[in-house]
């Protein structure tokens, strides 16, 4: 009889094998010193600190790890990797987890963050470059946070910080092809 919050460790797990392969890092080298969490700017807002996340991978806790807010609140600021005394590229591990979570279609604990990325990447092949106004409008609509950042809008517009019309770049069509090719390769 298993109790949900009681851990049954799986030291050899699909999660760890998968992450180690994608990131090229040896997860077992982590000795849980906590320096990564101590330096992480968003650790205060995460459910699992980066160190706890590494522990989760060591113990094979797939659901906790892929379902954490940690992987989506990571800013890739690289402070963890820069200071880790075992020289583990933790930022790369987090990156691999994000990609793994998407591949496994895990429900993201910070769905707005993933949504943002998807919208951004939807605009690039269309326009070739980012367009903040489109990005903001689409985000507000699709996330249902209709009034997010609306208060800033007037000032941004009057100061000419936002271009109303999206950019027209010839390279956009090439970028579209690029995206398609990448998707094709990844499907394999």
């Amino acid at each position: 009889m298993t109790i949900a919050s009681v851990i049954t460790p799986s030291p050899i797990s699909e999660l760890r094998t998968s992450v180690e392969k994608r990131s090229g890092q040896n997860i077992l080298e982590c000795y849980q010193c906590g320096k990564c969490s101590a330096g992480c700017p968003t650790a205060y807002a995460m459910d699992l600190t980066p160190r706890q996340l590494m522990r989760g991978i060591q113990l094979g806790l797939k659901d906790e790890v892929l379902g954490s807010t940690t992987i989506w609140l990571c800013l890739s600021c690289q402070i963890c990797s820069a200071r880790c005394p075992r020289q583990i590229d933790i930022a790369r591990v987090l990156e691999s987890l994000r990609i793994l979570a998407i591949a496994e279609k895990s429900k993201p604990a910070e769905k707005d963050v993933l949504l943002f990325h998807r919208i951004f990447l939807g605009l690039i092949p269309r326009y070739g470059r980012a367009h903040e106004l489109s990005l903001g409008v689409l985000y507000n609509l699709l996330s249902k946070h209709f009034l997010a950042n609306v208060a800033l809008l007037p000032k941004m517009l009057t100061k000419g910080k936002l271009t109303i019309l999206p950019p027209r770049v010839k390279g956009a069509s090439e970028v579209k092809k690029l995206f398609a090719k990448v998707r094709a390769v990844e499907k394999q």
Partner: protein
Amino acid sequence: MARIGVFICHCGTNIAGTVNIAEVLEAAKQMPNVAFVDDNKYSCSEPGQASIRDAIVANRLDRVVIGSCSPRMHENTFRRTVASAGLNPYLLEIANLREHCSWVHGDGKETTDKAIELVRKAVNKATHYEALFPKQIGLTKRALVIGGGIAGIQAALDIANSGYEVVLVEREPSIGGRMAQLDKTFPTLDCSACILAPKMVDVGQHPNITLLTYSEVQKVTGYVGNFEVEILQKAKKVDHKTCTGCGTCWQKCPEKVPSEFEVEMGERTAIYIPFAQAVPPKPVIDVDNCRYTKYLRFVEEGKEGKKPPQCRICERLCPTGAIDWEQQDQVITERVGAIVVAIGYQTFDPSAYGEYGGGRYPDVVTGLELERLMCASGPTEGEVVRPSDGAHPKTVVFASCVGSRDDRMGRSYCSKVCCMYMAKHAIMLKEHDPEVQCYIFYIDIRAGGKDFEEFARRAQEEAGAIYLRGRISKIYEDGKKLIVCGEDSLMGRPVEIAADLVVLATGMVPSDGAAELARTLNISYDSNNFLIEAHVKLRPVETQTDGIFLAGACIGPRDIPESVAQGSAAAAKLATLFSQDTLITDPLTAVVDAAWCVGCFLCQEVCPFNAIDSLVTDTRTVAVVNEGLCKGCGLCVADCRGGAIKLRGFSDQQLLAEVSALWR
């Protein structure tokens, strides 16, 4: 014709488990020159050895082949067995049927076949063996101890008390090492200088000890029992024979420089003793900073501009006229029979950690700097104050493993003593100021020694130190405070503390110059520059070089009782060496046939042990092997173009006999 006895050992099931002993015995019976075969369950045991001995005598055997474990295990044992039967111990050959056969192959015919081949090879070689006789060499019963810290002091005292003369060489102006810089020692909280000083005085006064301070070992030649050591004695510019140590000179010297002893938290003068209890209690002049010597250099180099002051106040005030500007560096040569290396450690330089300020923040100090602050004879007379503004810190944060357990810094090892000294600091700080609150960021608490665990508990329970499990990521200045960013991994939350003082528990690293000294002595050192012992478990104070011993933190991180024990251990090993009047050399050395030697000395170039000397005969100069130094590596044999060098125990005839055994 030889009469060879072949003895195959079962080694329990280690050999017998995969090798068919009976088949090997049968095959051995057929081998040329074999007069007797037998097997044994455990040849190295008393009954085993007795049976071999009896067989040698009963069967008039003149050569012995033993099929057993590696010669590295029991060659010496079996040599003694053979000798006890009245046979020359070098008429023995061992076939390694264990490490080279049964342990590396599976059960089967091929394994047994291989065992037979190995025995055949050994039999062929043994057929051509000659009796060999070790030589005796004399030894000088004087010792050299390099390093005057607690390990070296203990070694020197024990050797001297055993009745032998000791030369103790120390590169600082005084002995005492790191221990002299400590305030209190864990776990007893003894005053470090108080327990050290009596031993230092004993060294200074011991009739058998010649103390050479401000000196360094420059060159070592020779071999066990017969070392020749060149020692550079740096010019002190003070005649220690006339100096009485009254102190007038250093009290009046106007030139102040940062004191190395005070880890640059305090000052000393240009003419100085490093600390009050220095031994010898007589000063040296730091010629880089002394005003007069700077003036002399200025004049000598013919520089332009305003002449610096001549000073010479010490000379004027010295009541015995002990200042001697003419004194020069001197190189002396000492002949000793054995050397103890006890060069100790220094602390890791934390400025490599940019995230801790990179050395920019005055209120981020190292463990050793805190010792000096706490010490009543230190730069602040025992007042623990912030270096920046002299205020008493109320919140002190400790960071463990600074420069230890850190691949990024190239120091993966644990420095062993830091957990204990942080606990000590927490207890001492509370004694200094009952209102202080200490926070210790740790990864593990390593408290393995006697009374250590109880001591660590005392830090928490009595001194109220809060232990937070997690490495610190960053320290930054915020006004007068230092903000420390860590994680409490037990609560799983980031932690921030506004500290008045941060103490970095810096690890132990080898002393500067350790690698160079190791090369001078031709002893091994590892990738961290710690010196390597002959066997980590069983020979912790010896090196692979006969006659050179190790003691203390130069081997690796350890605390005072361990260093003291090793000092005594090295002294005991040395005394064992000196208890003999002559030394027996290993006869398995190279030997030059002078008739064939053309004197090209290629052998001398390739010898790693400097064991080839030149011998002037009446016709020419030829090479000759110093059998005390020769290790029998064979490089000279391989390189000699004329084939004039032979390696005893590995002659061409013997080796070719092995080849022909295998090439049937």
